[in-house]
């Protein structure tokens, strides 16, 4: 048998090992957002309680902000909430979408846990979330001053993701605008 031929399996196998090695750290359930660097799709949502303002895609202009998707049914959101309250106190503008939720439940949840949001829109049918490509709550979009999505955080924001990913990005976006 030819020696060159006998080396083919070794070569293929080495390439395979390298691919596997680099795949190890990746989360296969992480679905990349198709909205990155694209404008937010248009939406207009009512507020969670009578008299409170709603949220529309036009409100998200002028400065970089966080757009957080939550729901009163969502367990991880409770875990994330103190972090959002902290950020709001520090002056970060956060808008919220109360996703797949009754407005009254959303309002009650915010009463109980505190309200870190500048504006909150109630997405009862969940369709706005689907337009945004939301797969679960919490998810957080970073939207720049021109209303374009620059990043999507899947899962709760903790101090690690905030300090290493979101804060540097927001700083960069602020200097852009």
């Amino acid at each position, binding site marked *: 048998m030819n020696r060159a031929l006998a080396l083919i399996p*070794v070569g293929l196998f080495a390439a395979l090992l390298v691919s596997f090695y680099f795949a190890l750290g990746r989360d296969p359930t992480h679905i990349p957002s198709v909205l990155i660097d694209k404008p937010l799709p248009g939406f207009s949502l009512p507020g969670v309680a009578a008299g409170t303002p709603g949220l529309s895609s036009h409100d998200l202009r002028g400065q970089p902000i966080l757009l957080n998707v939550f729901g009163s049914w969502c367990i991880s959101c409770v875990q994330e909430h103190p972090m959002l309250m902290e950020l709001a106190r520090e002056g970060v503008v956060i808008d919220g979408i109360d996703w797949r939720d009754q407005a009254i439940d959303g309002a009650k949840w915010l009463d109980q846990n505190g309200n870190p949001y500048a504006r909150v829109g109630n997405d009862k049918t969940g369709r706005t979330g689907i337009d945004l490509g939301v797969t679960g709550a919490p998810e957080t979009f970073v939207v720049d001053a021109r209303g374009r999505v620059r990043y999507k955080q899947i899962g709760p924001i903790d101090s690690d993701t905030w300090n290493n990913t979101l804060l540097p990005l927001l700083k960069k976006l602020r200097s852009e605008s």
Partner: protein
Amino acid sequence: MTAEIGQYSLILAFLVALVETAACLVGAGLRDRALMALGRTASFLQLAFVGGAFIALAASFVNNDFSVTLVAEHSNTTQPLVYRFAGTWGSHEGSMLLWVLILSLYSAALALFGTRLRETLQARVLGVQSFVASAFLGFSLFTSNPFARISPAPIDGAELNPLLQDPGLVFHPPILYLGYVGFSMAFAFAIAALIEGRVDAAWARWIRPWVLGSWIFLTIGIAAGSWWSYYTLGWGGWWFWDPVENVSLMPWLIGTALLHSSLALERRGALVSWTILLAILTFSLSLIGTFLVRSGVISSVHAFAVDPERGIYILGIIAALTGSALVLYAWRVPAMRSGAMFQAISREGAITLNNLFLITLTATVFVGTFYSVFIKDGQGISVGPPYYNLTFIPLAVPLLLLVSFGPMMNWKRGDAGEVVRRLRWPILGALFLFGIFTAIFGIARAGAMAGVALGLFLIFGAFAVLASRWRFGVQGVAHRIWSTPLPIWGLALAHAGLGITTIGISAMSAFQTNVVVQMTPGQAVDLAGSRVTLDSIAHVQGPNYEADRAFFNVESSFGTRELVSEKRFFPVSQTPMTKAGIGMGIFGNTYISVGDRANDGSIVVRMWDHPFVDWIWAGAVFMALGGMISLSDRRVRVGAAQKAELPAGATQTI
């Protein structure tokens, strides 16, 4: 205390495996009989210690010792005894222990029964086996210790996933692993041959029974897994092209190739280096399957709790085992004596073609399963059933078409015209039936009918193998039937089984029907010629669940029968589960599963008519049975190195 005994056993097993590896490989190199004997003894010790560890873990599960973390996370006092026991391998750590236990069983079997094997060859095979064992024992100890304790111990444990609390869990993993791990023997034989730089008749005779045995287990294991998901998931799917299913299919496909090439090697001394490569690849695909299930690189319904760290370790094991095997292969094989010669049109040629298609099919499943790993931004690509329907099936059809021709060929030099002549009745019969079926069921189903006809061709072809030996009409038929060698029976049965499976799959794809309705007791619905009536709904209490139990009455032309489906709820793990009611029959199953009950007393009912679905698994049973019959003959021959070669003129036999 039990857990500590298990822990020490596991550590001792690890050390013994290391000693065994060294004793066997060094002993064989130096031809030191004492060292090689030590290696053999060590393989029994290793089995004893791994067995001890396994029994200790099983005892912890059965006795509800929740101070063991693994037990606390995967078992609960409300679970029936049999599922507490089977829970031993219902988790990553426990299943790894089962994996090593089976590996040790195979090693010990070789040490016990391989006494007629050349001593150095036996020692080298055992050495490779124990090297594999030490790698996985180390993996268990350092990254997935099953005996880790938890303090304080919880009063009760978290429940084993209710979907796993099923007889399927008792049988499926051990049988599947007997198949997966069994291919390590072929791997070890291949490495031993490469170390020695030669393949002799004894080697060829010895590798085949191990390959055949593993293949039988893997066939049953995969079929059992498919049947399990069919009845347990509540929606009647039998194959989903899920990554975890695919990694069991790949060793089966390439193991089937190995099964055939090792036949050419055993009978004719052909395809030597190719068989060695297949032996390495088959076990490597088993290892890669282990990596995929436990590393989290691919998302799957059945993946174990994953941990990249474990992924690194298994990747290291694969790199060491497969990597060194392939390097050894590239180094040694060019210098080895090449196999016996044959012409393109011959039994060996047919086996080569069979291998080509099986390799292509394996590659198809491999590319589909791992594609997202290979490319950048791979997470954006999903590879699902439609992909395999467009690639795997078109590539499988030519293979199935060729199956019947192979056994009709002579070894070394065949005659294509003669083979076609001998197969004329199966060919004409299948074509005729294809025409009839298409006329009856319409041109829209021609594809599926072609599949059914293909399956029939396989069955006819298998019978033709027997008929052409028996030569009906010539005197002495009874004697020739009686004296048909067992391997011929095995071959015919296995190929016919493949045909039966093909018919099942084709009929399912063409005629499956599904109805989803909201039903109140007393209401009746028509389903594919049957009338299904919901008789009543009762609320029942199971051992560790509560359920809505719905009673159905199914009237068809075959008679009336009662089917029961349950919507179960397991309070401990807060998990719902559906128990389907399945009315089985040769021509198809009626499959009913109930959903949530509405406030008005009605209930959601999904029902299917699954024509010929049982044929899919029945075919697999026939394949395995064929393998067993073949093996039962071979067992006598194993190790009979002093027995003369086949008498001249016996080339006609398998």
